[in-house]
């Protein structure tokens, strides 16, 4: 006979799910999940832009070197990147251990930048060649062409893909669990270990929380896609 489900455990630990042990300890839970995702998103936007621009460089050596780095990162699991950061960052900092939050942010940034660079590259490739030629023939420098003509148009087309990448990022923050960062998944395992008999309720509940957050952004991305496409048609 299956024991019944009892969701009162969720209600009893609700603040713990949202902010971790906050006034009495470091902030955690959903707030930390969103914080990690936002910081890593902003950093990997710039990382992805940089790598994407290097990928379309006219210098063959730079292009191949960047592609090699990007494809290496895309070829290994995020968990591997996190372990690399976990062991590499302390060594690079001369034996001082890095705070876990920054280990995770660094790993997420490196990992997502590689994927973002593909979006940037595709966005730049999507701008008709004539735009670049026209800009160059009016006397703009190649850099000015990129910054004033190609990128503004390309970035707008990339917005839905960026939002999708952000959704992946929110899901990926759950891996911070493995190095002991007290984000939502970690908090949930703690509560589950403490209360012993409610794992079904707890993991179903946090799955629903992740779903609500991610689904909101997925819907936003779909809406942006139709809206931006419509504007472009004029």
């Amino acid at each position, binding site marked *: *006979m*299956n*024991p019944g*489900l009892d969701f009162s455990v969720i209600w009893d630990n609700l603040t713990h799910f949202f902010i971790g042990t906050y006034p009495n300890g470091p902030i955690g839970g959903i707030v930390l999940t969103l914080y990690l995702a936002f910081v890593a998103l902003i950093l990997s936007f710039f990382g992805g832009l940089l790598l994407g621009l290097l990928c379309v460089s006219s210098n063959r050596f730079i292009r191949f070197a960047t592609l090699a780095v990007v*494809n*290496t990162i*895309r*070829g*290994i*699991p*995020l*968990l*591997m990147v996190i*372990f*690399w950061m976990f*062991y590499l960052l302390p*060594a*690079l900092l001369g034996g001082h251990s890095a705070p876990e939050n920054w280990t995770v942010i660094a790993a997420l940034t490196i990992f997502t930048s590689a994927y973002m660079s593909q979006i940037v590259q595709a966005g730049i490739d999507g701008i008709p060649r004539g735009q670049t030629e026209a800009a160059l023939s009016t006397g703009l420098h190649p850099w000015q062409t990129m910054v004033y003509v190609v990128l503004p148009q390309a970035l707008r087309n990339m917005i839905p893909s960026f939002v999708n990448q952000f*959704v992946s990022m929110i*899901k*990926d923050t*759950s*891996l911070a*669990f*493995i190095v002991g960062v007290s984000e939502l*998944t970690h908090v*949930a*395992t703690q509560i*589950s270990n403490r209360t012993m008999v409610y*794992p*079904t*309720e*707890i*993991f*179903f509940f*946090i*799955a629903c929380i*992740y*779903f609500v957050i*991610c*689904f909101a952004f*997925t819907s936003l991305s779909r809406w942006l896609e139709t809206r931006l496409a419509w504007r472009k048609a004029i």
Partner: protein
Amino acid sequence: MFNYHFDWAVVTSGQYAQWLLSGIKVTVELSVAAIILSFLLGLIIAVMRMSHVKPILWFAHAYLEFFRNTPLLVQIFFWYFGSYKILPKVVNDWLNTTNFEFSAAVIALTIYTSAFIAEDIRSGVRAIPKEQMEAAQSSGFSYLRSMYYIILPQAVRLTIPPLINQFLNLTKNSSLAMTIGVAELTYQARQVESYTFKGFEAFTAATLVYLALSVVITWMVTLYNKHVLNPLGVR
């Protein structure tokens, strides 16, 4: 880092190399099992998603959105720690006779990946002109039969490159199974690290194995695109 003493013999021979090899074996077993099951489940969900019966359509839609927008790690934990309360007793008893860590990881990977596969198959099907379906149905095929004999064989051909990409993702995602104690590659690399403190060597070895898998599979997709989908080189 600069006075770190590299010792590659740790991962190339002896007991620790055996651990890594057994890790590779488990990663491959886990991936192959989940690839087969997730393809079948994804196919079923894709057909349901295109059904004209509203409740079936809604179910497939909810399934896709829920499992795509939830982290895989949480799903693994749900099946490993929490599934005993919602599964029937017969299933629980059967699962306990298997290697439960492994089974839970296969279930979670299958369900998670099947949602992505279903979407890929659906876009493949949508690329087939709908006149094909109309023609099939007007010559007397039922919906399921026209799917099976006319639409899916063409769609699967188009869907193979994105599908292989999903399988590659699945193989990389199988590293998460270490969190519930499945002794796959990442687990063994970490194990070697904690026994020998040779983290760089252990993780380099594991990274190279994942990379080799990715490179080989990506290369196969490129060949497929070149020789099967577009043999004439038309752009």
